[in-house]
């Protein structure tokens, strides 16, 4: 009797299932987009004038350099230009939640100098071809010693907000920190790029999502005239 009941329930269940036909089958796929697919002509036509204008834009003059801005160690005018314009942009646009910070970038990422004369959009793209974004890293104060050691070992990197000499290291006037050191850098370096391992001690990293290249483009377009700056921020 009991067995019959169970069988009946099973049969009813199967019947209900069949009647309801409530099935939703799902098939999934991932389709790669690559050169094996022929590009659509109508879309190519739509893109063409933009592509052309963009190419022309690379030659557009957005500023002027009174002398060559070149990369050098321990300190060079190109590094100082990138640091100072980044700091100015962040302050002018209130991008960061803090006013006090130091800035650290890397010599190696500055791929091309800004030469005497007109500065074009293309020049800035050549200087900073990478899509690096500007981030704010919060580090313990103890990380500062590691930063100084790194700078001494490497022979110098572009910096801002502090001065480093053979005898001494000091934050710029008005820049003070309590327990936390705020460092403006690129997402590449904050993630340990160029062996900047001290960033691994970070409490937090806030990514502004703003490309360093875009900051430089906007600053050049806004301020127009640039002179090489060397102010002995690193003397090793």
């Amino acid at each position, binding site marked *: 009797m009991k067995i019959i009941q169970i069988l009946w329930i*099973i049969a009813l269940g199967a019947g209900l*299932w069949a009647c309801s036909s409530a099935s939703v089958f*799902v098939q999934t796929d*991932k389709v790669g987009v690559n050169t094996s697919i022929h590009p659509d002509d109508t879309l190519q036509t739509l893109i063409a004038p933009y592509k052309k204008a963009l190419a022309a834009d690379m030659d557009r003059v957005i500023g002027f350099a009174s002398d060559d801005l070149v990369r050098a160690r321990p300190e060079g005018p190109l590094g100082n230009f990138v640091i100072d314009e980044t700091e100015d942009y962040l302050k002018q646009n209130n991008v960061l939640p803090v006013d006090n910070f130091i800035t650290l970038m890397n010599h190696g990422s500055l791929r091309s100098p800004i030469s005497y004369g007109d500065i074009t959009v293309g020049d800035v793209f050549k200087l900073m071809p990478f899509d690096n974004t500007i981030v704010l890293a919060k580090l313990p104060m103890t990380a500062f010693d590691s930063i100084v050691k790194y700078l001494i070992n490497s022979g110098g990197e572009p910096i801002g907000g502090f001065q480093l000499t053979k005898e001494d290291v000091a934050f710029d006037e008005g820049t003070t920190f309590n327990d936390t050191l705020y460092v403006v850098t690129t997402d590449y370096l904050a993630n340990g790029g160029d062996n900047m391992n001290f960033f691994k001690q970070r409490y937090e990293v806030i990514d502004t999502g703003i490309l360093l290249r875009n900051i430089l483009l906007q600053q050049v377009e806004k301020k127009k005239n640039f002179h090489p700056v060397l102010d002995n921020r690193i003397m090793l």
Partner: protein
Amino acid sequence: MERRIFLQKSAIVGTGLAISPSLLSFPKHPEHLEKITILHTNDTHSNIETFPSTHAKYPDQGGVARRYSLLKQIRKEEKNVLLLDAGDIFQGTPYFNKFHGELEMKLMSHMGYDCATMGNHDFDAGLEGFLNAYQYGDFPFVCSNYNFDNTVLKDVIKEYQIFKKGPFKIGVFGVGVQLNGLVAKANFQDTTVSAPIPVANGIAKHLRFEEECDLVICLSHLGYEAKQFKDNDQLLAAETENIDLIIGGHTHTFLPKPEVHTNKIGEKVLINQVGWAGLALGRIDFYLGEKKRHKRHELVMV
């Protein structure tokens, strides 16, 4: 090409009854079933052109004109197609720097995108900038946990959108990442952000039971795993109900295939994300039988 088959069925039938595996198999003639194809991208980041053959990581991949050829081919084959994007359409190539999103909007409209949500980088031109670009967009944006009432995007961005494709009614809504600390205040102004999970629960329930949608899809720009903030797609899946599919973005995650997760009440929910830059197109085909509306259902992987 990866193909997987899942089965969704009414919970009322499944409860307490062992159904033989043969009943759960995919029919031999699926062409008799009604079908809808969901196609999706995320984090395309102004990538218009195919990456050059010298590209370090993705040579000869991506490109909107190739994506469109693919879309046209799929539309030729399928009757019901829905094309969605999970945000971060803007920022990443000089096209955005120069044209401020105009070209991205034009291309997506031309390609026939049905709906998108806003990622954090879609605020990069500011709210006015977005609005300016959006005059070239002819598809709705859904952001359910952003409130734009005190901004220029009031009445421009929708809470959700319902699509009717053949016999299907599909509800699509969107959840976005916290903007504070990620986007410059000047770029989002007085937009307010609510916790995404309670919002998702409210809207999904509405879409399932009030609007009687056959499918509920969430476009999420929270990220596959926690990045800057704790909310993410896996948590969203675990703590909600009434969502069938979460199409993710933000973390640029290349999921090899859509993942099946368990929701708040033990049902299954799909999560997918296809990297970034339009390198791939996600595709999920749903075959519906005589599915009863406003019934809870369970995803069963076959």
